[in-house]
């Protein structure tokens, strides 16, 4: 738990620094001229935590409220699924932060896919999808920065994407919104699974995850979330920033995480 906590709360640095000699530690940066740690919650000017993957995995003690097990049907896509395929730009007039618009976005999710894909992610007339896990290839979510992309997938009921690799902005939006869990596979799962296969995603104690395809009876190890982990675990960028003391608690009644 040490690593996540200190990433979330810079003031914990001081207490951990003295105990680091005897245990595996994360990287931390010290200014050559400072002998005291001066941590200001808002700027954290003298601390920059670099979390190595090994360090994350050895200390994740299961603050994983949002790391539930997902179980359901998978929808398989290939490489370079860009945001316009996920949600055609014409639906960009819908505002994701308005609940009714968000629902409508869900009904149009993956509407932009070309004919190559036979199945529809959301059946015409439906508002939600019957698929809970989306499996993709390389560079998933490339293209626009429009948050409508992860939002429509989450609104349609998908719980996680498992792709070989992500485009930067889409991944970042998944993390910031908490709409859908972005996981990375180690092999090309999209070549070994078919739309409609029954899958389970399990989160393990060491921070990694496992995708189990019950239809093909194969298991695939998924990569740990890395630096994005603490933000995802907190429930998005706002929840994370509140935990770190960067912003005050929400004064409105709505919950911070939009999922």
């Amino acid at each position: 738990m040490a690593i996540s906590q200190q990433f979330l709360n810079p003031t914990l640095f001081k207490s951990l620094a003295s105990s680091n000699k005897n245990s595996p530690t994360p990287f931390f940066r010290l200014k050559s001229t400072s002998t005291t740690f001066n941590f200001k919650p808002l700027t954290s000017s003298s601390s920059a935590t670099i979390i190595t993957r090994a360090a994350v995995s050895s200390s994740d003690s299961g603050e994983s409220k949002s790391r539930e097990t997902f179980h359901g049907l998978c929808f398989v896509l290939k490489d370079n699924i860009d945001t316009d395929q996920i949600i055609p730009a014409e639906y960009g007039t819908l505002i994701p932060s308005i609940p009714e618009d968000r629902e409508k976005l869900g009904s149009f999710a993956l509407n932009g896919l070309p004919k190559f894909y036979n199945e529809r992610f959301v059946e015409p007339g439906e508002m939600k999808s019957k698929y809970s896990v989306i499996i993709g290839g390389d560079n998933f979510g490339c293209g626009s920065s429009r948050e409508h992309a992860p939002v429509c997938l989450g609104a349609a009921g998908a719980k996680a994407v498992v792709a070989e690799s992500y485009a930067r902005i889409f991944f970042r939006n998944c993390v910031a919104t908490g709409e859908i869990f972005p996981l990375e596979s180690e092999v090309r799962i999209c070549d070994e699974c078919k739309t409609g296969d029954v899958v389970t995603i399990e989160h393990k104690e060491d921070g990694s995850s496992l995708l189990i395809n019950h239809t093909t009876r194969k298991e695939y190890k998924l990569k740990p979330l890395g630096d994005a982990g603490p933000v995802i675990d907190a429930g998005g960028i706002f929840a994370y920033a509140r935990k770190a003391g960067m912003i005050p608690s929400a004064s409105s009644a709505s919950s911070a995480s939009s999922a």
Partner: protein
Amino acid sequence: MAASSVISSSSFLCKSSSSKKDLGISSFPKSSQISIHRCQKKSISRKIVSVMAPQKDRSPGTTGSVKTGMTMTEKILARASEKSLVVPGDNIWVNVDVLMTHDVCGPGAFGIFKREFGDKAKVWDPEKIVVIPDHYIFTADKRANRNVDIMREHCREQNIKYFYDITDLGNFKANPDYKGVCHVALAQEGHCRPGEVLLGTDSHTCTAGAFGQFATGIGNTDAGFVLGTGKILLKVPPTMRFILDGEMPSYLQAKDLILQIIGEISVAGATYKTMEFSGTTIESLSMEERMTLCNMVVEAGGKNGVIPPDATTLNYVENRTSVPFEPVYSDGNASFVADYRFDVSKLEPVVAKPHSPDNRALARECKDVKIDRVYIGSCTGGKTEDFMAAAKLFHAAGKKVKVPTFLVPATQKVWMDVYALPVPGSGGKTCAQIFEEAGCDTPASPSCGACLGGPADTYARLNEPQVCVSTTNRNFPGRMGHKEGQIYLASPYTAAASALTGHVADPREFLQ
């Protein structure tokens, strides 16, 4: 904020235990991944003075007085996060200088801002936010129109200084504040300044990197966060260097350069990385050409693009803003994760064939491809110089276009230039006159237009499965409307040449 770190953990070297003993810090366990720099002086310091990823060709430092080289992007982010040093992989809170949003993402960003900070919350700085309606403007779509109204309300409430409003949709010229395409407007209105951090709720925000600043696209939630705090959590990207040397051939444009590069490294070749462009060719480019180059960095997956500011940059910027700024430059001993060199004099006009920006081909090798229309517009290829180039080619050819040719100036200023500026070598004719003589469509109201399809009634939208040569930035399936539309991305020269032949054409057919 990648799941898989861009810098592999092996870049953090662990020196052998013998050197640790020399420094007398034998209590450090072997599993520690702190690399310790050996002091070359007689007196060995026992303090850990500097902890960082060792640079490959850098000799060990002493007491921290030897500076570690940083790239331009690293320097900008270090300064914006109030640190003296950052290295790729660091997750840092960065102060934002300018936040831009538009009609598509603005309502969502402000919605989140209010939800999270409270209905009565105030933005962090009403003079650092620029709201530019540009995407779905000239349409009867009620929701699109509603979004501009929503932005007006937010801007009034928050006293946003820069809101380039539009109320009369029937006549863009009747709106004195309206600008047009956000990325071009940002530059034209003096919001782009070297050394600053500019974020926008649009993927092509990277365009502003042409001004030597850190500029990248973010989503509504991140923007909502910035609206309230003026800060953002960013991971420092490593830099890929692209050195372009050689004299730019007269038939080549910046669009050809970036398509060449994307074709080289693929649509994920620069994911999470900075693309830094330098070299004699870059130095010879105008600001608008540099903007075209940086604009498509996102199409290679890049986080941001940068070009070192020089006299050309300063001249442009100082004519448009009086806000003080301080440019930074990559150190000589900075580390780059990749180095690409191009001899530009040997390059030829290229296109990106359907359906990917990295599906590169020589324009001359596609001359059998029959096309249905040509589109010249967008932040990528709808600036003043882009239209000047197209007009120059049309004038040199002296012929009429064979297919419908749609012209969408990016901003009001560009539209005015098209109608007012004389095209060199044409005997005083304006672009508009030359376009009319060539049989092009009348230049349309400035906006993003059909680059991304948009509402069904958007001008020049691809509503049928046609073949289009376009000066825009993406050609994934359905990008301009119809899922079976075939889009060839090209430079303005190539687009104009193609309009004249009715096929994908190499501009040399008309320019030499």
